[in-house]
């Protein structure tokens, strides 16, 4: 598999990259932090990757998008899969007070992710094949007081991808929306976790499976599909009273 990963230093993206490396895949990684990117590249090579290329850059710099796709295409002699994995949660309370911070949240989680998906679609359209996998979130399924900036950005992305999937259908290009639930980060490693938490490795396996099967929308782990189904059914006049 030849994969371009945008936001390659995120925990979930790195877990996906490790699995692809152990299958001797080829990877091209883009992220802001060059030092981390370098450490990840070394790791992937030892884990068996055939080749690993990288570009350092901020994923909100739209003028770079074409350059990254060309670089990845040149480095791997083609691209099979584009994984868009960057995102920031932000501090809800601060976002409510600071429009600049709030703008960044929309920019990172919605605008840049949507435009990168479009760039990927434009790249794949000529070849009439390819998979665009994008990390959304269950948080996008319903607006909640605790993170409606992040949630609404992911909701917007969700709908954008729906449209893009529809647009690309006849071109044979797949658009996979991935909606993970709670994922354990190293910081929560020793919390008494409830059963809803999953490891990045589990999410990564699910992502790879969804890519191979060219699924449309996947909740990871699977049970979130049913949790969100129930949450979406709660009438708004009740939902607005809940502390979520």
């Amino acid at each position, binding site marked *: 598999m030849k994969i371009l990963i945008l936001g390659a230093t*995120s*925990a979930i993206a790195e877990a996906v990259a490790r699995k692809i490396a*152990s299958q001797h895949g080829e990877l091209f990684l883009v992220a802001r932090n060059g*030092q*981390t990117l370098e*450490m*990840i590249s*070394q*790791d992937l090579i*030892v*884990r*068996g990757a055939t080749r690993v290329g990288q570009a350092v850059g901020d994923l909100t710099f739209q003028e770079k998008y074409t350059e990254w796709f060309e670089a990845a295409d040149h480095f791997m002699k083609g691209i099979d899969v584009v994984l868009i994995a960057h*995102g*920031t*949660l932000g501090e809800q309370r601060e976002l409510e007070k600071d429009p600049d911070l709030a703008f960044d949240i929309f920019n990172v989680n919605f605008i840049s992710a949507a435009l990168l998906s479009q760039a990927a679609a434009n790249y794949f359209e000529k070849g009439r094949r390819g998979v665009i996998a994008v990390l959304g979130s269950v948080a996008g399924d319903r607006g909640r007081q605790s993170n409606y900036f992040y949630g609404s950005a992911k909701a917007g992305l969700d709908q954008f991808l729906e449209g893009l999937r529809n647009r690309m259908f006849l071109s044979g290009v797949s658009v996979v929306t991935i909606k993970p639930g709670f*994922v354990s*980060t*190293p*910081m*929560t*490693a*020793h*919390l*008494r976790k409830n059963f809803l938490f999953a490891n990045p490795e589990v999410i990564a396996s699910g992502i790879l499976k969804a890519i191979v099967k060219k699924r449309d929308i996947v909740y990871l782990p699977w049970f979130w599909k049913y949790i969100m189904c129930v949450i979406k059914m709660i009438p708004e006049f009740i939902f607005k009273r809940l502390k979520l």
Partner: protein
Amino acid sequence: MTLKYPSLDWDHTIESWGKYPKSKSIVCSLGSRKQEFSQSVQGVEPELSYLAYGRGRSYGDSCLNDGNVLLSTEKLSRFISLDAQTGILKVEAGLTLKEVLDHIVPQGWFLPVVPGTQFVTIGGAIANDIHGKNHHVAGTFGCHVKSLELLRSDGSRRVCSLTQNQDWFKATVGGLGLTGIIIWAEIQLKKIACPWISRETLRFSHLDRFFEYTLDSDSKFEYTVGWMDCLSQGAQLGRGVFFRGNHLLLKDVSENKVKSDKIKTFPFNAPEFVLNRFSMKVFNTVYYHTHPSKKAELVHYRPFFFPLDGINHWNRLYGKRGFFQYQCVVPFEGTQSPIYDIIETFARSGLGSFLTVIKTFGQKPSPGLLSFPRPGVTLTLDVPNEGKKTLRVLERLDEKVVEAGGRVYPAKDARMSKESFQNYFPERAEFEKFKDPHFSSSFWRRVT
């Protein structure tokens, strides 16, 4: 989605593998091998002490830091390089042996020393200077560490090896994590032809026979270990089953032969009446008699080295109260060995051990200052925690070990006295010079 600050939360109840004692700590995470120390512990009150924490697989309290800070090495999980010519592997300290083995075995390499579980980290393997079934030929894990990086609480970093910062290297190997954090290490791997081990199983009816087998086998077999029924006495004192094996030298046995290694999980803490002297007696007797008196076969390395890894949370078998693992080494003096006295004392004590393991240690010295293995015989007992009675018996064993000039393994200990520790490890005074002043552990506060 990463949190900006470490979770400064006292609600983290941490257990080691023996489930005793319980402890509470603030848990911080080391973000990457390049991260500054001060960044990892941002917001932590300065009077608290630190201790690196891998997977919590030490049995007692050497991996705990009750009322203080644990620094999780979970994120230090990247490979750095593997030289396909020399077999020198450079990895971050938070990788587990399983992650390393899964990757290197298909390429024809193996770790030079492995313990009874593959769920320990590289950093933990060095800090406890672990040993395995090949101690009689290979020595400890620390004997194969080419170099390591040590990060101290003052932010300094040192690359340590036998030629560079030699004193720091010796203090850190087997140093129980008290000299700072091991960030990465270079390890000399060994070449193998395939993942298979040719194993021979021999039953022995008395401890004397074990010594005959082990004397005969240690020169011909790389791996030797004995399982022992510690509840039988008299003419059957120390009867058991002896396992010995070598890496198979053939290449053509395919990996396909492995039965899928599905891992089962022990679902809950067993009620405490499950493990009693009677049930342990039954288990030990059945285990002894179901092994043929002699058998040779090919086995995959996983069941050979890590039989208990097949069941997640097997420690739950002992229930909420947890258990003690008691491992001592005493000089090897043939049938006069003090180990006879220790085994007899335990067999008569009224306590039981679910699994008892016996093995001879070889002559190869470890570079580690506080390293546990010494030439002699080592005995490991798994003893359910029955409170004072258990502590009393283990204390009596300590007296015998001290008398014999032996020592007890800190990585498995949750109860040895200050006096015993001083007796076992006179090197402690020298070690103190290298201990990080802001590092400590529940174990260290208990024995010093």
